[in-house]
């Protein structure tokens, strides 16, 4: 593959394009509502109307407003048809030739769409994720070619450092710094891993990116591999995402066929291959050391860091692990430059962030906004607030590792630091809106049950501590707990946070801590008065009776 050939593919793809491209969302949400049937019927309707030469029907990735799928739209400014059924097809086609269709529509000029800023999702809902030519037509793989021919690996890292990109998986570690560490780590063999184990319940950004634009992940990985000196990549994807997996498999096959993956890519000495690894349902595998154990075919238990994966990762070789959304930013940054990217967002959080809006909110779906956008803009202006006349009580971010931000803080700008100050985290991008019918102690219990079930069992604080915390929360909800039990819960939160081996345990208490911080009254209302039992239990060492012998 050469520059010329890449351009030829782009040109012939553009030349073959018909006057009207009717896009049908073919992401998992719409697919579950018969998007496939809709597309088929639309194709038939085009033929029936004799418009084959003018109109083509294309399956595209996520068109973002998931709550009213299946979605169908011609060009981005034309009507966006919602809740489309196969029966609507003739009317949609008829409307293309002028006239108004009496069909359900959403306004493409509504804030849900206009307030978005697309970098990661730029191609989502626009290109056909199953055809590499469709990606090349929007300058896909041009960034890789540019990096390989115009930049040294060092230059590429510098671009990423200067862009200010931070990891989108949750912790927000500077991506360029991570790349630099792997590049500097000695070793002939290096690996790169794309973490597509999107485990946070309520998060589906990565699924959408993989389903909508799989090639941008491959391109991001290839650029990263070139920069750090890796020749083998793995994508670790959740088994729960069969559509994403099949689109990735297909994309890898196509890229290999065109020589964009393999040996001597773009006639350079750079070799790179990608293998897909399918997870098997373990939240802890989102933690990088556990993920590596799983890629090696083992039980997904984490190990203490250091050593960090950058020094000793897969098979003890230096390994770069980046999240899906992080990698999706790479090609655009290389294409448009570091300055372009760092102009978007806030001082410390650059670029955009994709959020999956869900829960008690009018417009559930996928949004991408510049970092620093106020939470209120996201949930009220764009999301349309809570449905059924209810009011928003809190917004949960960061999944089981995050926290609940109460409504009075809705004007907080969404960036890494601000969310951390509020006791939550940016997390991977799940944003669950809760209305006034949600009981916060129940939410805390829900997440604690999740962490208890997902604990790998290796370290004691997480394995046994989550069980006790869950038990105490159940006790509180059953109105059987006393203030002393609440104190025990808080003490355990502190202990599990500070002593657990990996991120799962270290963040497991967060939902409790955060709901206690803002909704303490909801806990206290459920407590019984303190009974006149034995004095508060502390360990002051006065009694020498071993617990062990008096345990039972």
């Amino acid at each position: 593959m050469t520059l010329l050939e890449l351009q030829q593919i782009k040109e012939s793809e553009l030349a073959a394009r018909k006057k009207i491209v009717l896009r049908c969302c073919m992401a998992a949400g719409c697919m579950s509502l018969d998007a496939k049937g809709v597309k088929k019927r639309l194709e038939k309707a085009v033929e029936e109307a004799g418009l084959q030469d003018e109109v083509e029907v294309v399956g595209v990735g996520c068109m973002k407003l998931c709550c009213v799928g299946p979605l169908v739209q011609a060009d981005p400014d034309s009507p966006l048809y919602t809740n489309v059924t196969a029966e609507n097809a003739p009317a949609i086609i008829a409307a293309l030739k002028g006239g108004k269709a009496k069909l359900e529509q959403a306004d493409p000029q509504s804030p849900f769409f206009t307030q978005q800023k697309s970098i990661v999702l730029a191609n989502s809902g626009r290109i056909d994720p199953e055809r590499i030519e469709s990606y090349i037509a929007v300058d896909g793989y041009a960034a890789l070619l540019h990096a390989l021919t115009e930049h040294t690996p060092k230059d590429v890292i510098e671009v990423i450092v200067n862009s200010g990109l931070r990891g989108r998986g949750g912790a927000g570690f500077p991506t360029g710094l991570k790349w630099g560490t792997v590049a500097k780590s000695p070793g002939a063999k290096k690996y790169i891993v794309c973490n597509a184990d999107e485990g946070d319940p309520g998060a589906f950004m990565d699924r959408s990116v993989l389903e909508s634009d799989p090639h941008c992940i491959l391109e991001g990985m290839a650029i990263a591999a070139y920069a750090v000196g890796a020749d083998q990549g793995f994508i670790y994807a959740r088994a729960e995402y069969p559509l994403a997996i099949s689109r990735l498999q297909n994309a890898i096959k196509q890229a290999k066929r065109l020589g964009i993956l393999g040996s001597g890519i773009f006639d350079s000495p750079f070799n790179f291959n990608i293998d897909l690894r399918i997870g098997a349902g373990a939240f802890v595998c989102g933690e990088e050391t556990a993920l590596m154990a799983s890629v090696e075919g083992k039980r997904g238990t984490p190990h203490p860091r250091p050593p960090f994966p950058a020094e000793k990762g897969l098979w003890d070789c230096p390994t770069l692990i980046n999240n899906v959304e992080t990698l999706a930013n790479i090609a655009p940054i290389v294409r448009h430059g570091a300055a372009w990217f760092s102009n978007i967002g806030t001082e410390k959080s650059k670029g955009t962030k994709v959020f999956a809006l869900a829960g008690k909110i009018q417009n559930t779906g996928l949004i991408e906004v510049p970092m620093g956008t106020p939470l209120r803009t996201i949930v009220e202006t764009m999301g349309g607030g809570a449905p059924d006349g209810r009011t928003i009580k809190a917004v949960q971010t960061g999944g089981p590792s995050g926290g609940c931000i109460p409504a009075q803080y809705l004007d907080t700008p969404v960036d890494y630091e601000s969310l951390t100050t509020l006791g939550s985290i940016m997390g991977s991008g799940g944003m669950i809106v809760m209305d006034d019918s949600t009981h916060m102690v129940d939410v805390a219990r829900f997440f604690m049950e999740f962490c208890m079930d997902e604990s790998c069992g290796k370290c004691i604080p997480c394995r046994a501590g989550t069980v006790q915390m869950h038990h105490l929360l159940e006790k509180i909800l059953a109105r059987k707990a006393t203030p002393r039990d609440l104190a025990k819960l808080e003490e355990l939160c502190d202990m599990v946070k500070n002593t657990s081996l990996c991120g799962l345990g270290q963040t497991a208490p967060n939902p409790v801590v955060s709901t206690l911080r803002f909704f303490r009254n909801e806990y206290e209302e459920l407590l019984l008065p303190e009974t006149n039992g034995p004095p508060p239990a502390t360990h002051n060492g006065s009694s020498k009776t071993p617990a062990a012998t008096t345990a039972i």
Partner: protein
Amino acid sequence: MAVKTLTIDGKTISAEESATILQAAEEAGVIIPTLCHLDGIYDVGACRLCLVEIVGYTKLMSACTTRVREGMEVTTNSERLRNYRRMTLELLFAERNHICAVCVANGHCELQALAYEQGMDHVRYDYCYPKWEVDASHRLFGMDHNRCILCTRCVRACWHIEGAGTKNVSGRGNQSRIICDLNDNWGVSKTCTSCGKCVMACPTGALFHQGSTAAEMQRDRSKLEFIVNAREKKQWSV
């Protein structure tokens, strides 16, 4: 070999650069409590009892897996650490059924000894009282899952010293359990060599010699380090 100088609990000490904080502390006569660590077996940092504070580190670090560094200032015994250790032990006691009075390892148990040492005189959490079984199918040894603390010392001894790979952990979270082969009865295991290394490694009464009754189960845990030194360093120091 490079030597690093560091302080542990205010005491200035020097240690080989490959040493862990735990090894350096031991050399200097500072005792850090451990449960999943056993000399001779590689460390996994799972029990979290050996956590220490290091100046400049935001997180607590496990002494058994953290290597010494020049100028490190380590605290092993703060009030906070002692508190966490007691809580860890309480969690363990509440997790399964540890009844010392009737246990084969009474008086020879690392968990019991640690509870004494750390002043853990009662358990404030509700006991879980799980129903775990006892595998008495092996002609020489037995396994009582009720007394298991999942330290995986037996698994590591089986894989890395004996090399048989008979034992492993199955399940996850609080449903984790030590198994033999394909969750077979120990007595019918096709891979177990009956070498007894797992029994030597066990810190509690979970693994025991058949026929032992309360307080009878003693074991020589230093044998494992002896074998490893003999094999790897060609040193037969008894």
